[in-house]
């Protein structure tokens, strides 16, 4: 198991290197001039010269890539062409904001999936109703769910906040994760408020992935509940719930785990929209602004970060797959 994990991690490094190269190349082949984005269209030739030097664009390409790579490893992601700040500083509050939201959205998706799939697996009329819910919810785009959520839970009922991350200030020694901040400072009120702010955006971003996950899990459960080993358990006198718990979920989880990785990747694009709707100052908002401004440095940096998160997540899923299924682990 250990060597399996190490080998997966080694392959992560390779993939990330390739990703860095791709992201770097993307900024170089674009036909927008980064210097003009940086200092504006009306700058003098002298100013352009100065800016080129400042951005390191006079160096040979290989040196530029080396600087980009070594900088990234040390946490220096370059300068944003639009905000003129170090990108790393820009992201220091935004990355945790997005990770917190994505974590809750994924958590919601997984819980939703397990509940939906388990109810569907045990059959009955509820299963038929759920199948209907599956289809309708999976076809609703995240922004629609987000707007509906705002209309119902904020405007009509006033139950949940609809923008920002907290109703209070931010702690000086904030981890960037507000729920954790609240717990660290022994302030349940602060944590609860942060959770309140998370509910609507997390549901909006997690609903469709949750349903997609539920369908995979449900198919897998259907297969494992009608499999010969479930029949064996039945013949040994086990109840359906015991079979589901003891044999069904674990055997159905392999395809669901793979699906989880796919959905986590897809969630990035829905987060861009959801963050806009809920004025969530995270990577998504930052990325949207950077794209609008043609800020290739920022786009490259955010893409690299999202890529790394995605690759690491996939590696974790593979390790989890091996943990779940001894046939993967033991050959």
């Amino acid at each position, binding site marked *: 198991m250990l060597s399996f994990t190490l080998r997966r991690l080694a392959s992560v490094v390779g993939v990330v290197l390739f990703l860095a190269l791709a992201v770097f190349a993307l900024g170089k082949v674009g036909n927008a001039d980064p210097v003009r984005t940086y200092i504006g269209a009306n700058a003098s030739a002298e100013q352009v010269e100065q800016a080129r030097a400042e951005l390191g664009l006079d160096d040979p390409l290989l040196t530029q890539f080396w600087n980009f790579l070594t900088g990234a490893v040390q946490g220096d992601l370059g300068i944003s062409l639009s905000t003129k700040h170090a990108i790393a500083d820009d992201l220091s509050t935004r990355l945790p904001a997005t990770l917190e939201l994505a974590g809750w959205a994924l958590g919601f998706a997984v819980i939703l999936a397990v509940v939906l799939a388990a109810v569907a697996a045990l059959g009955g009329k509820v299963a038929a109703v759920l199948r209907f819910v599956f289809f309708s919810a999976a076809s609703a785009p995240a922004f629609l769910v987000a707007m509906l959520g705002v209309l119902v839970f904020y405007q009509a009922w006033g139950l949940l906040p609809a923008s920002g991350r907290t109703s209070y200030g931010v702690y000086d020694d904030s981890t960037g994760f507000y729920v954790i901040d609240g717990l660290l400072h022994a302030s349940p009120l602060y944590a609860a408020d942060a959770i309140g702010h998370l509910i609507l955006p997390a549901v909006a971003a997690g609903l469709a992935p949750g349903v997609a996950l539920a369908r995979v899990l449900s198919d897998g459960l259907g297969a494992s509940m009608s499999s010969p080993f479930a029949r*064996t358990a039945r*013949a*040994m006198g086990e109840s359906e719930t015991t079979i589901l718990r*003891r*044999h069904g979920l674990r*055997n159905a989880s392999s395809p669901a785990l793979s699906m989880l990785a796919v959905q986590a990747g897809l969630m990035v694009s829905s987060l861009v929209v959801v963050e806009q709707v809920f004025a969530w100052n995270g990577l998504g908002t930052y990325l949207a602004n950077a794209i609008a401004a043609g800020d290739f440095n920022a786009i490259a940096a955010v893409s690299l970060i999202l890529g790394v998160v995605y690759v690491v997540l996939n590696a974790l899923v593979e390790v989890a797959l091996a943990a779940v*299924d*001894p*046939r993967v682990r033991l*050959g």
Partner: protein
Amino acid sequence: MTTASPVLTIDDLTVQYRARGRTVTAVSDVTLTLAAGECLGLVGESGSGKSTIGAVVQGILPADGSVTATGAVAIDGRPLVPVTDPAWREIRGRAVTTVFQDPMRSLDPTMRIGRMLDRYTGSADASAEALERVQIRDPRLVLRKYPHQLSGGMRQRIMIALALSRKPSILVADEPTTALDVSVQAEVLTVLKEAASDAGCGVIFVTHDLGVAHHMCDRLAVLQRGRVVEQGPVDEVIGAPTHEYTRRLMASRLTLDLDRSRPVGPVDDAVVAAMADAGAESTVPADLTRRWDAGELTWDAFVGETAALGAATGTPPAHLVSHVTRTSLSLNGISKSYRGHGRGKRGLHQVLHDVSLEVGYREAVALVGESGSGKSTTLKIAAGIEKPDAGTVSRQGVAGEGTQVVFQDAGASLTPWLTVEQILLERIEHTRTGAVLSKEARLALAAKTIGLVGLPPEVLAARPTQLSGGQQQRVAIARAVAVPPSVLLCDEPTSALDVSVACSVLNLISLLRHSLGISVLFVTHDLAAARLIADRVAVMTAGRIVETVPGERLAHDLTTEYGRRLVDASLA
């Protein structure tokens, strides 16, 4: 064997399945009893209702109205309404447990054996004892294993241990050794018999195999279309069957002392007639074919008469050549490895070591071995489906069309959305001889071929799913021989079929081989089937051909230890 109170009584049991508005009666008016310590065999072919009776006794049929049952069942003297009684929940897994057919998939692949067993035995020590009772030598080690790390025979022993761990009154064994290799089958049966008798529980033994039933059971109930047609002590039923169906089953048993010169099993007149008509244009005259198929001719007489006719007409007689004159297929020094699945570190797993095999012109060669011996890989390489790592394959196109394969699972090998006629035309169009034919001639050839394999012309318009397993296999054979290949490659073509159907397919392959003058490479785990079909039998184990003997004297001539073991297992 009988005791005062039976552990199971079944009175007038009738079971019906309801699906899509249709009602199918699976079991009619069945009355049975089982005493403690007794083994009752339920014998029959698919659709006979034997497994349904097993399922009723286990109480695992769905109580949602899709299955209805009448009659009375009593277990340990406790009366139960079949199927719907809520008390089945207490019976299932306690008074009645089951050993299923498929040991490869009947154990949860994600769970260690110990964790499965401990739940019912209560402790690791008790689990180890349970494994000892099914003669597993190193129980502590096995308890730590996952199912995929164990062989089929080991897994089936674990299933038996699992089933007996609940100390049931009744053990239902549903075809428990059908999926196992012959040499393993005998061991597992012995283990099952001894462990069940030590535990003192009654056994319901469901099987299609009269030989296995004879070995295992005290009493037999022979089932046909849901009814018990004959019931009695095993020696009486096997020794002196009174019902015609039992006799048919007996006649369909493939043994190593069958007369190879005659068709095996019950011969259906309609099939014989259809074959004879279709065979009119073949080089063997129809009436000879019919007489051979009906069993009126010995092999020597058949050969003599065709040879005489051939000499008279100037056409070479299309039948067995007593010694090999030319080679239709030759494999030279074939080696093949596959990448071990799971982790790559394990590297390559060699399945074939320097295999050489020749199939002569109009010769039939059988390749016999157990699962994992490499016999199917050899066939795939002969067919060109797989490429060998080393060695050469040469196929002489005597009939001009190389090789054709008939697979075990005919249903899966036929395109489901095409009609049988389209399936045959597709094959005919893709051959050199077929491509030059007119549309009409192709249709005529398809029609002729379907008759040749003993099917009525209506089958041409049917789709594969509308046909029975035996019919599907005949269609698969028709596709292969519509334009005769030089070598017909058969991969366990009868293993998935009922015994009587299997016999008729074996007869068909023999007949076609002679009437069309093609060579056959027949891959099987069944020595008796190999002996019937083949002039020569090659025995394969662990990727090597260990010996080759003439088919006729197979049982006497096999000399290697492995070959003897196969023969002994087949005799038992």
